[in-house]
C-alpha cells in the first residue's frame, strides 16, 4: 500500500480522550496553585499510575499495557497541555528516563523491585547523568563507583537532576574505569535514603514545580544487585535512550507551542487597541499564521521521527543513523520553535506578558529549557552534521 501509515488508530483516540480528561481534572485546575507554591503533591505519581498513564510503553508482565509507543506519545501531548511543565517534567523523568532504563536494561529482580512499583506510581524515580563539569559531554563525568566486595562505593556529585531531590531511587551514571573508549561508565540504582547521599532542591527560573536536584555522593554504598547491566555498559544505554528522551521532548514542545499560539490568539481577540481587537491587525494575523505553519511543520517532522521509533520497536530494520538524525532534527527544530511561539505569546500580551497572573510568561520561561536540556541545540547540530559526513572543528 502506498501512502503514509497512520500513527494513531481508533484506540488511541479513546486513550487521548481519557488522557485529556485526566489532565483536565487532576492537573490543569491546580496548575496555578502548584506553580505559586513551586510544588505539586507527590500523590500525583500514584494517581497517574493507578489511572494507567505510566503503563503505555511497558509490557503487561511488569504492570504496563503495552508496549504501545503511539499511546505514550498521546499521553505526552496531552500532559504537555496541562499548563504546568515542571510537573510534566517530573512525571516524565520518572517514566521516560528512570523507569524506561530499568525496563530496557534492568534484570527481573530490579524490574520487580523498582519497575513495577514505578509503573504503579508507588515509587518515584530519577536519572542522574549530568554533573557540574559534564552535561552534553557524557564522557566527562567524574562521579566514580569503586568495587568493594559485593558492593560498590560511589563518590561524586550530580546536578540538574529532574525529580532528583525527592525521588525514591536514582539511576546514577558513574565512572567504573579510566580506560579510553566508551566502556567506562556503569549505571546503578541508588535508593534515596542511602547513607552518604545528600540532596538539595535547586531554585530554577523555569519548571518551577519540578523537583530538580543537586546530588552529592560520599562513599554511598550500593549492592552489586543494583548494578544495571554489565560493568561498562552505561554509555551505550545512555546513547540508546537519548533518542527516546529527545523524541518525547519534541512531542512536548510541539504541544507547548500549540498551547502558546492558542493562548496568544485568544488574547488578541479580546484585547483592543486603536479601536479594534489586535487580532484584526494584519501583521498579527500573518504572524499567527506563520507560527501555525512552523508548528505544523515541526509536528510533521516529530511524527516522522516517531514513526521511525515505532518501526524500530516493532523490529523493522531501520538504519540507526537515520533514527538518530531524524530525532536530533526533531529536537533541534521543535525546542526553539516552542520558545519562539511562547515569546510571541508574551509579545501579544504586551505589559500583561510580564505579569505572573498570566500563564504566558510561564510558558515562555518553561520553553527556554528545551534548547538546553536533553542535549543542547549545538549538540544536535553536531550530531546531524556528523550524519552528513561533515566534521566539527
Amino acid at each position, binding site marked *: *500500500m*502506498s*501512502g*503514509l*501509515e497512520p500513527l494513531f488508530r481508533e484506540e488511541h483516540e479513546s486513550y487521548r480522550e481519557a488522557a485529556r480528561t485526566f489532565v483536565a481534572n487532576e492537573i490543569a485546575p491546580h496548575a496555578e496553585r502548584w506553580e505559586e507554591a513551586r510544588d505539586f503533591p507527590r500523590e500525583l505519581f500514584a494517581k497517574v499510575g493507578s489511572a494507567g498513564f505510566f503503563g503505555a510503553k511497558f509490557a503487561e508482565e511488569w504492570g504496563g499495557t503495552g508496549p504501545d509507543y503511539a499511546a505514550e506519545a498521546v499521553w505526552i501531548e496531552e500532559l504537555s497541555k496541562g499548563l504546568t511543565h515542571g510537573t510534566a517534567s517530573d512525571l516524565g523523568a520518572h517514566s521516560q528516563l528512570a523507569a524506561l532504563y530499568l525496563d530496557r536494561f534492568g534484570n527481573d529482580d530490579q524490574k520487580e523491585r523498582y519497575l513495577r512499583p514505578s509503573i504503579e506510581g508507588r515509587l518515584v524515580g530519577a536519572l542522574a547523568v549530568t554533573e557540574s563539569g559534564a552535561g552534553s559531554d557524557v564522557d566527562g563525568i567524574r562521579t566514580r563507583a569503586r568495587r568493594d566486595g559485593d558492593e560498590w562505593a560511589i563518590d561524586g556529585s550530580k546536578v540538574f537532576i529532574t525529580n532528583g531531590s525527592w525521588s525514591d531511587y536514582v539511576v546514577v551514571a558513574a565512572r567504573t574505569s579510566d580506560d579510553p573508549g566508551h566502556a567506562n561508565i556503569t549505571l546503578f540504582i541508588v535508593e534515596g535514603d542511602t547513607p552518604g547521599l545528600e540532596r538539595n532542591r535547586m531554585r530554577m527560573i523555569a519548571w518551577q514545580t519540578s523537583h530538580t536536584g543537586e546530588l552529592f555522593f560520599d562513599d554511598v554504598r550500593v549492592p552489586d544487585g543494583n548494578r544495571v547491566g554489565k560493568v561498562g555498559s552505561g554509555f551505550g544505554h545512555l546513547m540508546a535512550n537519548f533518542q527516546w528522551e529527545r523524541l518525547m521532548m519534541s512531542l512536548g514542545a510541539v504541544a507547548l507551542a500549540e498551547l502558546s499560539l492558542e493562548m496568544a*490568539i485568544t488574547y*488578541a*481577540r479580546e484585547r483592543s487597541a486603536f479601536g479594534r481587537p489586535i*487580532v484584526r491587525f*494584519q501583521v*498579527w*494575523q*500573518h504572524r*499567527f*499564521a*506563520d507560527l*501555525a*505553519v*512552523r508548528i*505544523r*511543520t*515541526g509536528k*510533521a*517532522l516529530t*511524527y*516522522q521521527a516517531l*514513526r*521511525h521509533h*515505532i*518501526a524500530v520497536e*516493532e523490529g*523493522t530494520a*531501520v538504519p540507526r543513523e537515520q533514527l538518530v*538524525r*531524524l530525532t536530533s*532534527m526533531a529536537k*533541534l*527544530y521543535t525546542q526553539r520553535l516552542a520558545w519562539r511561539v511562547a515569546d510571541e505569546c508574551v509579545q501579544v500580551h504586551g505589559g500583561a506578558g510580564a505579569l505572573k497572573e498570566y500563564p504566558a510568561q510561564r510558558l515562555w520561561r518553561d520553553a527556554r529549557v528545551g534548547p538546553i536540556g536533553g542535549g543542547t541545540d*549545538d549538540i*544536535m*547540530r*553536531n550530531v*546531524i*552534521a556528523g550524519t*552528513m*559526513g*561533515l*566534521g*566539527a*572543528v
Partner: protein
Amino acid sequence: MNLSPFTEEHDLLRKAVADWVDTEIAPNLAEWEEQGDFPDDVFRRAGELGFLGLAFPESAGGQGGDYWAQVVFLEEVGRVSQAIAMVLSVQTDMATPPILEFGTDAQVDRWLKPALRGELIGAIGITEPDTGSDVASIRTRAVRDGDEWVLNGSKMYITNGARAHFVTMVVRTGDVEEGNPWSGISMFIVDTGLPGFEVSQRLEKSGMKLSDTALIYMDDMRLPADSLLGVEREGFKQIMWELQGERLGVSVFGVAGARAVLAEAVRYAREREAFGRPIGEFQAVSHRLAEMATEVEAVQALVHECCDLWNRGVYATELVAMAKLAVGRLSNEVADEAVQTFGGAGLVEGSFISREWLGMRIGRIGGGSDEVQLQILARIMGIG
C-alpha cells in the same frame, strides 16, 4: 510501521523518470537557460514515456496511477531544475486537471488526451497585468454572441504562454453580483490557434530563463461555445480547486529542489579546502548545513503528509497553503546558504547553484504569494 509512502512500483517509476531526467534533460539545462528556450520535444518525450498522465485515469488517457506516482515524477524533475519542473507541472498539475474535473467527454478527447500524450501543450491563465493574487478582480472578459464567445483582454506571466496550444483560462463573463465578489467568472479552454490570439511579449526573467513566460493578448477572439469549461459563472470556485493541486505540485518539486541544492552544497563543503582542511570540517559551516538539512526534512514531512491527504481525496486547503508557504521559504533559504557555501563559485552564471538560486525566488511569488498563503491560513484559523 511502513516508513515510506512509496511502493516498489513507485521505486521502479522513479528509476525510469530519473533515467530520462539524467540523460535527456539535465545535460541540456545550461544550454536551454542560456538560450532562454527549450524544445517542445521535451513534452512529446515525456508524453511518450507516459509521464504526463501518471495520476490520470486510463479512460482519460492517463496511466491510472495514484498521486504518489505524480509525486515521484515531480520530485525527480525538481531535483535537476525548478524551471523544467515548472513547465512540466503547468502541463500536468495546472492546465489539464481542470479538464478532467470539469470538462465534457468531448473536451477530454479534444484537449486532455493529446495533452497527456505530449502532443498539445497547455498553459494556465489567471494573472493579468493589473491583477495577480486577487483573482476576483480579473478584467479579461468573454461576451456571449450566438453560438460563440467573444474574448478580449490579456494575461500576464503565463508559463508556456508562447508555445501553448491551449490556455485553461479564467475569464469574466458577467458582472459582480452584490454580496458575492467572486461571481461572474467562468473558465474556458482557449485555443491559441484561433484568430485574435497574440503573444505580445516573451518576458525576460531573472530566473527560470528556459521557460517561455509570456504576456498574451486576446483581441476579439471568437471562441466556439464548447470552449466553456465547467459551469458558467462557477469559474472562481473551479479555479480555487485548480490552485490546490497547483500549489501542492510546486511544493513537491520545490522541496526536491531544496534537497538537491543542499546535497550539492554538502558535497562541495566536503571537497573544498580552505585553511588546510575541507570547509565542511569547520563547525560553523557544518552547523549551518545541519540546520538546512533539518529544515528540509521538516518541510518534506509536511509536504508528504499533505500528499497523503490529497491522495486519499481530502481537499486539504489548510495543509496545502502551509506546504506552499513552507517550501517557498525553504528553497530560498537553502539555495542562498548553498551560494554562500560555494563562495564565488556560487555566483558563476550557468552553474547549478546559481541557476537554482535564481529560479527558486519565483517560488515565493508564483501560485499565490507568501502573503496570500498567510492570509488564507489566517482566514482558516478564524482570525483573518
